[in-house]
Structure formats: structure tokens, C-alpha cells
């Protein structure tokens, strides 16, 4: 699976971090960092992260 975050949209709400902590993190400046090719076993978590992004900035491909 490929994860793409539109960083122009992202406003650092951090909701994705709660939903999928293995894939999304906030760095010490509160900015989003993420794994763009997570294991397919994490699909559920990543779909949930995409759902809870208030900006709908997370896209899952493949």
C-alpha cells in the first residue's frame, strides 16, 4: 500500500497519529511525519487515519 499526504492541506490536527501510530507521527515541532509504504497488514489503521483527517488530506493507493 502507498500512502500520500497532501502536505499543503495538512494542518497538524494529529488525528491520524491516534488512529495509526505506526504510520503517522508528529515531530517535536508538531509537524507531521509518516511512513509512505506501510505494510498491508496496517490497511485498517491507515483507512481509519484517512477517515479521521479533518482536512481529508490522506490518500491510500494500491
Amino acid at each position, binding site marked *: 500500500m502507498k500512502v500520500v499526504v497532501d502536505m499543503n492541506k495538512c494542518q*497538524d490536527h494529529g488525528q491520524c497519529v*491516534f488512529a495509526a501510530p505506526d504510520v503517522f507521527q508528529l515531530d517535536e515541532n508538531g509537524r507531521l511525519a509518516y511512513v509512505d509504504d506501510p505494510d498491508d497488514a496496517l490497511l485498517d489503521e491507515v483507512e481509519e487515519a484517512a*477517515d479521521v483527517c*479533518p482536512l481529508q488530506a490522506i*490518500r491510500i493507493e494500491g
Partner: protein
Amino acid sequence: MTGRMVVAGASMAGLRAAEQLRSAGWTGAITLVGDEPHMPYNRPPLSKEVLAGKAPFESLAFRPRASVADVEWRLGTKVVASRLAERAVVLDDGSELSYDGLVVATGMRPRRLGCPGPLAGRHTVRTLADAQGLREELTRPGVRVVVVGAGFIGCEVAATAVGLGVAEVTVVDPLPLPMVGPLGELLGRALLRRHEERGVRFALGTGVARFEGEDRVTGVVLGDGTVLPADVVVESVGSLANTEWLDGNGLDLTDGVLTDGRLRVGGRPDVVAVGDVARFPNARYDGVPRRVEHWSIPTDTAKHAAKVLTGAEPAPFAPLPTFWSDQHDFRLQSFGAPALGRDDVRVLDGDPAADVLVGYHHAGRLVGVVALGGPAAVSAAARYRAELLQQPALTA
């Protein structure tokens, strides 16, 4: 699994319900019936980016999960009646849909002020069309705006209007401070000061008596006799649940649709309610059924309700309410149920005059955390989220 699930209301909660039904293993048909002409779109930007002209419609549409590619969308169609005992709903084109499971997801509509005066020039903000219509009026030069209601949406609209360059923006509310109901006095005062510093005026402690004008609003007359000249009025005075189509089934529809602790409606295993319209007890708190108009709730309720509708027996519903609001250059971020701890409010970090993190307590226990300020305050609030999640149930 075969048969048909019908979802009434095709907005965020309806879409999430369809997706979660698939996740829960439902492979039968799903029909979504929604009276708006659009596919589900995201509402929070309506009072912010859309009003500010910064978000085109394409950017609002939700991207449905691949799992719902085969569901049937009946858009521009209203559910007008229902016979739950017969498992059927009636649509405005006269047709009927029978179902094996029904999801109530019809949300809310704005409450309107009943006081006398002309209607033209008065707006609400719930739909895309509302936001676009209001934007057109706010971008006319020299316009004077009165926002009735100092709740979240009223404050957001006032902030966006100031950001658009509107010189005269006044917020009216019978309560003495903005957002004092959900957030209490400490943050209410902090918000008032921040809005005033950025150019929003307030007329607090008095309501609207009537609107002035012949064909169109020209002013707002307050309860204390003050007259505020106005070219545009925004009414943000709460909302009413869209439940008329459920009348006649013996349900409790006093404020939304009452559910049990598993989101079932009327004690039936085949009807659930999700999103803003659901009035549910939260097992995390006191068991009192409440509606929760927060963006996180459609997703939380959909997940739980889909399990119930497909025959699972999940633990009683116990979501952690989460809310944010963007106003001017600051954000409010809330976790938990601050309103339940309004009588014992403590500053956890920072200073109400700058970035602040506030804790709400009930019987000595933390029940909610709200941050007001920049990213640092917001991420500090997030650190308390785990603590709030771990706490045992609060019983009345």
C-alpha cells in the same frame, strides 16, 4: 449476508455507515438516500475556508473507500415516512424501500429565529449552498454584518468575516460570554478578548427582539432596545434534528432520535442511529443520552452501529468526544466532555492571555481538556488524551 441495508441521510455519517457496514462484513446491497444533490462533503470548511473563498467544492468531497464502490446512491431524494414494524421507508418520489437494516443518519438543520421582521438578508450556514450564498453577500463592499449566536459556528463566521475585510462584524448573544455553555467562563473570557482584539464587536447579555427593514433586513433590534444597523444577518442559534420522517413509530424524538447504549433505536435490532441526529448514552460518562455535534462522532458512531446491525454485540458505546474550531489565527482543540466539568476548571499549562491548556474536572477527576492557541497548546492537549481514554466510567 444478503438483503438490503438502507441508510437515510447521505452525508458524512451516512457515508461512514456504508463503509463500516462493509468493514463489518456486510456483502448485501446498500442504498443511501440523501436529499442534497451532492455526494457527501465535509462541512467544517463551510464556516471557514469555503466562506473565505479558499476551498473549491472539489476539495470538500469525501473520498469514499473502495469498499463502497457498488452501493446505490439515491441523491436529491428525501425520505418522507417510515414504517419500522414493516421494515419500509417511503421516499418523496412515492416509491418505497424495504430493508433488512436501517441506519438513521439525517443530521440536523439550523434553528431559525422566530422574531418578527423581513427574511431577506438573513442566512444560516449548514450546506454548501448556504456558505456560497453568504460569501457572495460578505464580499460586497461596506457590508455590515450581525451574527446572532456566539457559539462555535457564530464565532467562526465572525472570524472569517473579519478575515475577509468586513469592517463591521457584531456578535449578539443573550449569554454574557462566547461559547460559555460548552467551555465555561475562563475560556469564554479568553475568547472574547481574542475576538475583540481582532476587530469583532459583541453585544452580549441581550437577545434579538426583531429585525428592521421592509423587503430586506436593515437592522437588528435587541432586547435592550439597541439597534444594530445590518445589511447581512447570520443566524447561528442551534439546530433541529431531521426526524419528522420517523414520526408515527412510537419513538422518542424529543431531541434527535433516542438510542440505547448500542445505538439501537426503539429497542429494535434492525434500526440504528449515527452522527449528529443520534441521542445516545456514553458509557464513558454518566449514562445520560445526549446528542454530540462534533465531527468525530459520525465516524465513531458508524463503526459501532455497523457492528450492531450486522449482528455483533460490541461493548456499550463509549467514544471520547473530540472537537476543534479554527477562528482567526488560533485553534480550539477539545478532548473529552468539558461541559461536564464546567464547575471545576483549572489552568493546566500556559496563560489565558496567551496559549493556554485548561482542564475540566468532575468530582475531582479530569473529564475534559481544551487547548486554545497555537500548535504547541494543541499538541499539549493531545498528551492528555491517553489519560482521558484510560479513565474508568464516570457514574452519575
